[in-house]
């Protein structure tokens, strides 16, 4: 069965919107709306475009019209709920919308997460926790639900109950390892290249190959490459750090620490080894201070990357040094405003200092960037287009 035909104006609008040309897309979409005011595709696309431009009242209006035209218009529900949440102060309405979206698309994790956040904003704490737990049942790796639950635990019993949640979400964060790969010079582009047929002779090339294998999650291959480099030169800090990383990823923290420490004994300012050692320490309760020392040194080599600031901040949370944690989180956010982990961490730090409004704001910003990053509107829109037949 083919998807319902959409007007030429609408198709052009979709194309322009996907290219990020919002203004032109709005003009075309407007033509589509004028041609058929009851077209849920056009209305929902318009709602998405208004949302992208932060025109929340307009997004609400368009999404409402789309839903009136088709009560199963999932992208319209998404746009409507996000517009309510981003506008603020409309939690009662957004709770209803997220409920509806969860009915229309039952496996949409974000709907449960957003529902929980709306409940929390409206002070329905138990309902919020239930919604987040429901989100985790759908996807145990949903990091925002984990952070939300950690914040809720913090409100009830202090930072100690929140830290495990932060750490768990942190371990699920793929951007953390990006720091390691950045430090060893393995870029996404390099990692996508075809691998050589024969292993390279040069030790540095072997280590680079190992880094690429690690990036592709072939940890055993990466370890073999590191081992081969070490057989040629056992004092190769880069090879040691790579080997340490592979152990770290397999949660063999003592092995990882042993190799990272050896690398640092040879090259005290070896940043990749500092990363591995810091993370290995941070996984142990009681070693926050040691981890903080390592990450503080790492910062001297990678201060322009948000992740060392985040890692240091999390150590400070564990050490009950909340104002220092706040400073580090703010540095991370200045470097990357879309760093969801830093936003939630900053929310935690603000809460410890009684700044609830700021904490709520940071959670909302985290939600904003997370939903933008997911590209959820287009996923739902495309599924909706495909499904309407």
């Amino acid at each position: 069965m083919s998807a319902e035909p959409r007007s030429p104006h609408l198709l052009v609008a979709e194309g322009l919107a996907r290219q990020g040309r919002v203004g032109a897309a709005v003009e075309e979409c407007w033509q589509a709306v004028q041609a058929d005011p009851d077209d849920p595709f056009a209305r929902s696309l318009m709602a998405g475009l208004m949302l992208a431009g932060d025109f929340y009242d307009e997004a609400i209006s368009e999404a409402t019209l789309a839903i009136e035209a088709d009560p199963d218009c999932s992208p319209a529900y998404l746009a409507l709920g996000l517009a309510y949440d981003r506008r603020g102060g409309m939690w009662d309405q957004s709770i209803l919308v997220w409920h509806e979206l969860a009915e229309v698309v039952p496996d949409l994790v974000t709907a449960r997460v957003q529902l929980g956040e709306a409940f929390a904003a409206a002070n329905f704490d138990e309902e919020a926790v239930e919604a987040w737990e429901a989100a985790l049942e759908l996807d145990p790796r949903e990091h925002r639900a984990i952070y939300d639950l950690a914040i809720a635990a913090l409100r009830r019993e202090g930072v100690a109950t929140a830290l495990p949640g932060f750490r768990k979400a942190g371990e699920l964060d793929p951007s953390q390892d990006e720091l390691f790969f950045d430090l060893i010079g393995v870029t996404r582009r390099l990692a996508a290249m075809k691998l050589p047929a024969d292993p390279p002779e040069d030790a540095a090339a072997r280590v680079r190959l190992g880094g690429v294998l690690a990036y592709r999650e072939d940890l055993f291959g990466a370890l073999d490459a590191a081992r081969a480099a070490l057989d040629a030169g056992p004092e190769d800090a880069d090879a040691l750090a790579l080997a340490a990383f592979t152990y770290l990823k397999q949660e063999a923290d003592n092995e990882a620490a042993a190799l990272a420490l050896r690398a640092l004994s040879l090259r005290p300012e070896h940043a990749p080894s500092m990363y591995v050692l810091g993370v290995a320490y941070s996984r142990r309760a009681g070693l926050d201070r040691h981890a903080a020392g390592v990450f503080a040194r790492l910062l001297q080599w990678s201060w322009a990357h948000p992740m060392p600031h985040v890692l240091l901040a999390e150590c400070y949370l564990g050490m009950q040094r909340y104002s220092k944690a706040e400073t580090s989180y703010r540095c991370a956010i200045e470097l990357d405003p879309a760093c969801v982990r830093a936003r939630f961490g900053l929310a935690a730090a603000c809460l410890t200092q009684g700044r609830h409004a700021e904490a709520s704001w940071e959670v909302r910003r985290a939600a904003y960037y997370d939903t933008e990053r997911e590209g959820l509107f287009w996923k739902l829109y495309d599924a909706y287009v495909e499904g309407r037949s």
Partner: protein
Amino acid sequence: MAEEAAVSLYRSFVEKDPARAIDVIERAKAGGMTREQLFGALFVPALTLLGQSWAEGGIDELAFMQAAVVAEQVTSFVIPSATAPDRGVVVLVGSMHRDTHSVAKDIAGGDLKEAGWRVIDLGADVRPADFLEKAEETGARILLVFAEMTTTARAVVGVREVFAAEGREDVVILVGGGPFEADRKLARVVGANGVVRGAESALRLVRRVARDLFGEARS
């Protein structure tokens, strides 16, 4: 001597001898090494030697992993404790009568507990007489009273009055909450000894008060 002990510990890892590893640690402790020093001066160098041995081919993959298992078995002896030791000082925490706000109280109370203070949380809507009763019962001399509304903040004076009527001027009353942060004079007006501005501030102030009341040992 620490160096020798570290080598000895490393050997016990490689020889898969946790009993010997513990013995090395116990000897180091008996020799005056603190828990903090055990980690830095003993465990870390032993791990470094382990890493070196693997890198140089002195031990194979299996031996490396088995040694790491032994290292894991003794970490509880060398890693500093995650929770602070009990300081033996009671701190009463509560939200003022007719005030049901509790988030700031819960966070501060949780953090104080984590830092080793014996926190007794009286909850929200606590009458001045209840603070007194609990203080008499537990011997507490440090109170942390939270109030998030101007009316309840002003009413904290009732806590000081109740304690004063019983001759308990020795009790230190710290206050926390928005009204006290907004109006610096309010704390003095209600007879409080200090204002807590968040959890970190609570930790700092309580530590200082405890040092003043009980000396360095219990702060």
